[in-house]
Each structure stands twice: as C-alpha cells, then as structure tokens.
C-alpha cells in the first residue's frame, strides 16, 4: 500500500465520488478540490471516476426515443384545463418567491433540502476586483445583492407570464448590426418569412460558428476579442422558440444571449467611462471547472439625473405603407426603440391616413406590453392626411411634457406627406412653433420610390430634430438605439479585451461565445484595429471556462514536446490578468488598463444571482448549440435561472424562463 500518502484517505470517502460526479457544492466542494489539487494521486482517482461515469453513461444509455402511442398521449393532453388544479403561474410564482429569499415552508418541505436557501447569502467581496483607467491597482468592491422585491409577484402577473397573450413582447425584434464597422457579414433581420432590406426573401442564412475549444495556456496564453453589445441573436432565437422551432445552431451566438440581459456591475468611478469587474465561481455544468466573468459597465447616461423621455410616435398608415419594408419595418423599429426606454418614460401613438387618431394615449413604458400591442395593431390602409395627425401628436406630447426631459414627436412615413396642411410653409411654421415649446421632431423615412426627401429633411430641421432614412432594421437599430438620446451615447469606442492566463494555475481555458469577435493577439495594441463600442449604461459580459490545474481531465491532450511549467512560476496565485484597451469617442489613441485576478474558489451556489443568471444563459446557449462542452440540460438551465431572477424590472429574465420551457417542449432530434 505504498501509494497511500495522502493524509486523509479520500479514496474511500464518498465525497470524492460525489465530487467527481459534480454533486458537491460550497465549502465541501472547495475542500475536496483543494485536496485533489494537492495530490496527483487523488486527481488521478477523480479522473478515473469520471472515466467510469462516462463509460456508465454510455453503457446504460437508453433509447429515449421511446414514445407513448398517440391514443395514450391524447388522453394525457386532452385533460380539460378545468381539471387541472393550478395554473402554470403558480410554479413561476414559487420560483420567484424563492428567488426573493422567501422560504416556503410546508409545500416544498417534503422535497428535503432546498438549495435555493443559498440565495440569501451575500456575495463574496474578495475576488471581485474593480479598476478604472488611471487607477494603478485594483481595489475591491462588492456586488450588491438584489433585495427581495415584494411586488415581483404582481409584476409577473401583469407581465402576462405563462400565457401566449403577449405576442408583442415575444416577437419583438431580431437583427444583426455591425457595430464594429469591420465589414463583417451582416445578417439582416428576418421576420415572418421575409428579409428586410434584402433582395432575397424567405431564406435565412447564418455564418457558421465554430466553437472555441479548450486551449492550453502554455501554447496560447492570450485570448483577445472585441466587445459586443449586440443582442440580436437572443431576439432571433426567441422568435424561433416562440414559433416552436429549433433555432439553427449558428443563429445562436452565446455572447449575444448573455449580453441581452443587464447585470448589476459597479458604476464607474471618477472620469472612467466604464468599470471593469472580474469574479469567478464554479462552472455549474462542470463543477471542477471555474467560470470567470468579466463585466463592463458603461457610465450612466447624462452624467446627472437621467432625462425622462416623452415620445409620441406619429405613424403614416396610408395604403402606400403596406409594403414589407415600410409599415412592418416601422413597427419593428418602434418596438426596438420602446425596448430601449426606461419604465418611467412615456410613449403615445398617433396614426394618420384617411382618418387620424390617437391610437395609444401617453403610456408609461412600464406598461410595455400595452405599447407593443398598440404598435402591433397598426395596419395600413386609406389615404394620407397628416395635418390633423401632426397636431394631435404635438398635443399629446405637450400634455405630458417632461420638464428637463426629452420631448419628441417621431414621425415615420414613406414620404407621401399629405399632412392636411397642404401649404408647406404653413406646416413648417407649425413645426417651428412647436419646437419652441420644447417638443422636437424626428423624421424617419421608410421605403423607396415615394420618398419626399427634401420635405422631410426640412421638417426635421425646423423641428429642432433630425431625419434619418431607415432601409433596414440594422439601420433602425443604429438610429434609434445607438444615436437616440443620451441613454445610448457612445462613451468609449474600440473596446478590446485581452486576457493572459497563468499556466501555473490554468490547465486549459476557453472563451464562452464571442467566436465572431476574436482578434489576433497583436491587434490588441494596434490602435488602427477597430472594435466594439460601449454606450452609456451598457453592460458587457464575457465568460471564460477554466480547467484549473489539478482538474484537467480530458481538457487538452498532454503536450509531448513542451517543458512542463513549474507550478511556482507566475510568482503569484493569480489566475489570469485582464487587459483592456479603449478610446474616448473623439480620440484616436487608446487607453490601457490592467486587472490581475485571483480566484477565491467560490462555489456556483455562493455566486451572486447575476453571475448565476449569466451562467444559466450561457448554458442555455450551449444546449441550443448542442455544444459538447459540459453536461448541460434544459432542466438545469431552468433551475439555475429560476433561482437567479433578481429584481428583473422588465421581466426579461422571466421571459427567459419561458423560452427555456419552450425549448423543453421541442423535439431536438
């Protein structure tokens, strides 16, 4: 028994098996992980247990294609709803309550231990570094634990969660922009069978994504990529799922899924345009692996108090708008804009054609579903008569005039601008006069062939406004999201991230997502190389999955010709160093800052809800992409996300849960 040198014989400890099977959490997991890291023998043992487990999974694989016969299935599915005791909301309500830290005794007690009780623990302070440009060293800040939100249940119900009655929310938008300006292929938005701004209709095309596998830091110590604030892939995936179809693999860009959600990173300090924070926890799908999260948070818009927006959409619904690239694109553009507004902002909707009318009185964006429904309900028909329409729009804007805020009429038309006031001079005077009252005009032109370019530009000029031509959703996104209002003012451009891994700590690494954003290592210091922009208030998240030394089973094949790195090199316990470059919006010279990071070994359960939610979203992407990385299934994703809803002010995270459910209902063969 000469091999038994470990102080404690973990070989006969059930916890070692539990560890290898990914069943341990928290301090127990950390204890075993330490022991494993310290003992090659135990590491070998774990590796063997993992091999055996994999063998058993293969050997015992059953034919899960077995199906009930139609008759029996029908019997199950046709039980009338009245015979069902509770509706689906109940489950979600439980989850939300649990997420809010309310312990439900009784109903769930029979289940035994509730792991959701981990939630109420406060986040780890150490290991969560913060740095701003100019700071010479990282200081430490805390991630704020989301306080329980008592009104979450109501918020959930007002969201209409659990039913299919809010198509406007679900079918929102999908598009792919090109914020880096690198000339990457753009997949324009597709919606219900036609391609906007494209000659081709009804065919969808996606650039293949080849996932980055694990890399050995001795061979590839650097990971370089451009940030991406796009979220188009999420909306697109959502569209597929809502239509009960499996999204094409390459439509799933994991970083865009993750970045669809806002995370609570610390506000930047001083003059820094954004903050950078790094934290880590166990990877939920592979507890021996570490998940490292890099979070960027852009400075809040307008430096001071956010400006409330009071917007009136004035939409041309005349017969000429009844073309795919006109009214439907207007609708999508407006929905996109609504998605960017804050709950306290207001939106009203006025249409003009044969008859004009106030379709939606000024409505707080808090009631997003109502606004989206109204936009959804627009249909073209009748002749154009914009005169009374434009007066109606200004009246609506003035009625809810926001002092210190943004007051704006947004006119969307194909240019057949028979506004009722036929005298152009008279019309311009009207608009000019209204502009003095503080209500400005933006004109959005749609479609081709009928565009009264000059008129529209004049209108906008006289209305203290702007004029833009929208030929595609990508353009709508640019105009309405990137250039509209202070919320999305660009605060830094060409933001690049480069991570250097410490081979003394990291056996293998992989960047989760960002496949299309990879840069060559040398591009990092090349200021001519374009990269992504970050807007005010934006958050950007990147996740790395790391196999620590000691848990490297099956990650990367061993190197035959490289000298092994001494574990003492690297000097420190640092896991990695994050380097960031960015330029101020008007500058051609980049700033650099550097943030070394030491892993504190936190378990997944102890991580902040935001962290867990981001991980769940990434795992969802891995499921959808049928990724080989980790053992992920949708049930897990649902559970991880359900316990990490946090405040979820817009219901986005609950919508995510619904998408996971939809995915569960699909046939993945």
């Amino acid at each position, binding site marked *: 028994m000469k*091999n*038994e040198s470990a102080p404690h014989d973990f070989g006969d400890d*059930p916890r070692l*098996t539990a560890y290898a099977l990914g*069943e341990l959490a928290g301090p127990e997991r950390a204890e075993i992980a330490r022991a494993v890291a310290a003992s090659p023998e135990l590491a070998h043992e774990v590796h063997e247990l993992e091999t055996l487990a994999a063998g*058993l999974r293969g050997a*015992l694989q059953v034919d899960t294609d077995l199906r009930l016969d139609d008759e029996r299935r029908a019997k199950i599915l046709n039980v009338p709803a009245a*015979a069902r005791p509770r509706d689906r909301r109940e*489950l979600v309500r439980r989850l939300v309550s649990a997420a809010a830290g309310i312990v439900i005794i009784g109903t769930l007690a029979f289940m*035994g231990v509730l792991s959701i009780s981990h939630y109420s623990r406060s986040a780890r302070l150490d290991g969560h570094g913060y740095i701003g440009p100019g700071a010479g060293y990282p200081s430490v800040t805390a991630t704020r634990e989301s306080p329980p939100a008592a009104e979450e249940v109501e918020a959930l119900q007002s969201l209409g969660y659990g039913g299919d009655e809010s198509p406007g929310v679900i079918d929102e938008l999908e598009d792919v922009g090109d914020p880096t300006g690198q000339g990457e292929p753009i997949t324009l938005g597709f919606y219900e069978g036609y391609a906007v701004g494209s000659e081709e209709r009804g065919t969808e095309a996606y650039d293949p994504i080849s996932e980055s596998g694990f890399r050995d830091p001795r061979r590839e110590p650097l990971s370089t990529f451009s940030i991406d604030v796009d979220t188009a892939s999420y909306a697109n995936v959502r569209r597929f799922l809502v239509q009960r179809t499996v999204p094409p693999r390459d439509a799933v860009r994991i970083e865009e899924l993750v970045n669809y959600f806002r995370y609570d990173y610390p506000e930047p300090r001083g003059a820094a345009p954004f903050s950078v924070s790094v934290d880590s926890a166990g990877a939920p799908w592979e507890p021996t692996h570490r998940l490292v999260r890099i979070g960027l948070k852009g400075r809040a818009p307008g430096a001071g108090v956010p400006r409330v927006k009071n917007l009136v959409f004035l939409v041309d619904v005349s017969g000429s708008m009844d073309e795919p690239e006109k009214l439907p694109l207007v609708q999508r553009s407006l929905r996109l804009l609504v998605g960017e507004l804050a709950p306290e902002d207001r939106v009203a909707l006025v249409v003009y054609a044969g008859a004009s009318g106030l379709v939606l009185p000024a409505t707080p964006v808090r009631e997003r579903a109502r606004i989206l429904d109204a936009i959804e309900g627009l249909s073209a028909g009748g002749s154009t008569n914009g005169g009374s329409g434009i007066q109606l729009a200004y009246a609506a804007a003035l009625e809810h005039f926001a002092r210190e805020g943004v007051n704006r009429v947004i006119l969307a038309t194909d240019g057949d601008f028979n506004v009722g006031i036929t005298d152009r001079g008279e019309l311009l005077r009207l608009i000019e006069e209204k502009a003095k009252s503080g209500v400005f005009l933006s004109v959005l032109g749609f479609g081709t062939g009928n565009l009264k370019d000059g008129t529209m530009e004049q209108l906008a000029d006289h209305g203290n406004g702007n004029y833009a031509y929208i030929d595609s959703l990508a353009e709508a996104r640019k105009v309405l999201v990137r250039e509209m209002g202070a919320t999305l003012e660009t605060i830094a451009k060409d933001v690049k991230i480069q991570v250097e891994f410490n081979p003394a700590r990291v056996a293998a690494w992989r960047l989760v997502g960002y496949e299309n954003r990879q840069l060559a290592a040398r591009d990092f210091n090349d200021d001519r190389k374009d990269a992504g922009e970050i807007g005010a208030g934006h958050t950007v998240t990147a996740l790395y999955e790391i196999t620590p030394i000691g848990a490297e089973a099956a990650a990367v094949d061993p190197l035959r010709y490289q000298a092994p790195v001494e574990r003492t090199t690297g000097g420190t316990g640092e896991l990695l160093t994050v380097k960031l470059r960015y330029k101020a919006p008007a500058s051609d010279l980049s700033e650099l800052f550097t943030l070394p990071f030491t892993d504190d070994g936190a378990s997944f359960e102890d991580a902040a809800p935001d962290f867990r939610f981001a991980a769940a979203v990434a795992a969802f992407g891995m499921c959808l992409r049928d990724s080989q990385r980790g053992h992920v299934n949708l049930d897990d994703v649902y559970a991880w996300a359900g316990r990490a809803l946090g405040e979820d002010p817009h219901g986005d995270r609950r919508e995510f849960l619904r998408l996971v459910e939809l995915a569960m209902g699909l046939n993945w063969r």
Partner: protein
Amino acid sequence: MKPPRTEDDGWIRSVLERHEGPLLAYALRLLGGDVERARDLVQDVFLRLVRADRAEIGERTTAWLFHVCRNRAVDVRAKERPMLELDAEETRLPAEGGDPFERAEAEDESVRLRAAVARLPERERELVRLKFQHGLSYQEMGEVTGLTATNVGFLLHKALRALRERMPESIAPVRRECAP
C-alpha cells in the same frame, strides 16, 4: 394573432415530450420489459401529473415523475408479479430488444460494464441506473427512492468502487488493488 390556447397546454406537452422516453425506459426496466404495461404505467404517471398540484411539485418535475413511476411499478408488481425483483435482470431487455447499439458492439466494454452493473446489489444497481441512465442528481435520487442524499452518495460510491474492481484495467483500474 395566435390561436387561443389553454394556459397549461404547453406545459404538459413539454413535460410529456421531455420525459416520456426516459420514463418509458425506466418503466420497462421496472416491469421486466413488458411494453404494454409500461405504457399504461407511464400514461398513469402523466395523468397524475396533470391532476397534481403543480405548486407542490415545484421545479422538481423529474424527481416527481420518477418517484411516482417507481411507486406505481411497485404497486403493479406487488399485485401481479410478486416474485419479480424490483430491478429486473440486466440482460433481459437487451436480449429481446434488438438494439442496434447492442448488436454492433456486443464485445465491447459497454457490455462488460452492463454485466458488472447487473451483478451489483439491487439497490445499488437502481441508483447507478438513476444516476447514469437518467442523469438524476443525488437529491433527486433520494426523492425517488426515499433514501437520504447522504445515503445515496454512500451507496453510489460503494457501487462505483465495486464496478472499478470488477472491470478490467483498461477501463477503470483501481490502482491500490493492482499495486504489488
């Protein structure tokens, strides 16, 4: 606009589609490969799910389904085939199943692994299957079988040790046993 739907329709359907295959496989095993009986059993489990208080099931649908399936199987067997072991003999199903996987790799280590599993005590065999065939967590396995999670961990650990001892070195050598 979308056609009106009952609120729960999607939920039941999604659970059914997700779990019917694994549950049928599980029920088949429990009932010694009797396909008709397994279908009846699984239908019954889902009808119970439909009628169950979903709030009580919470997010633990998988454990609930397996638990009910197992209990129903025990009931059925107690009435009809009292002599049948809870977890029918390992070789029974593949022999009649004609699984192409089975046939193609008759000689390979999967077969040996299955044979080794078949020699485990009944309870351990059941846990191994719940874990590796159905991917349940310790917690869920506890809920299905009525054991504590700790007990599950202990038994599974024991089972894996036994398997490693029985399997040839190429698959899972136990170094301590092999050391001179």
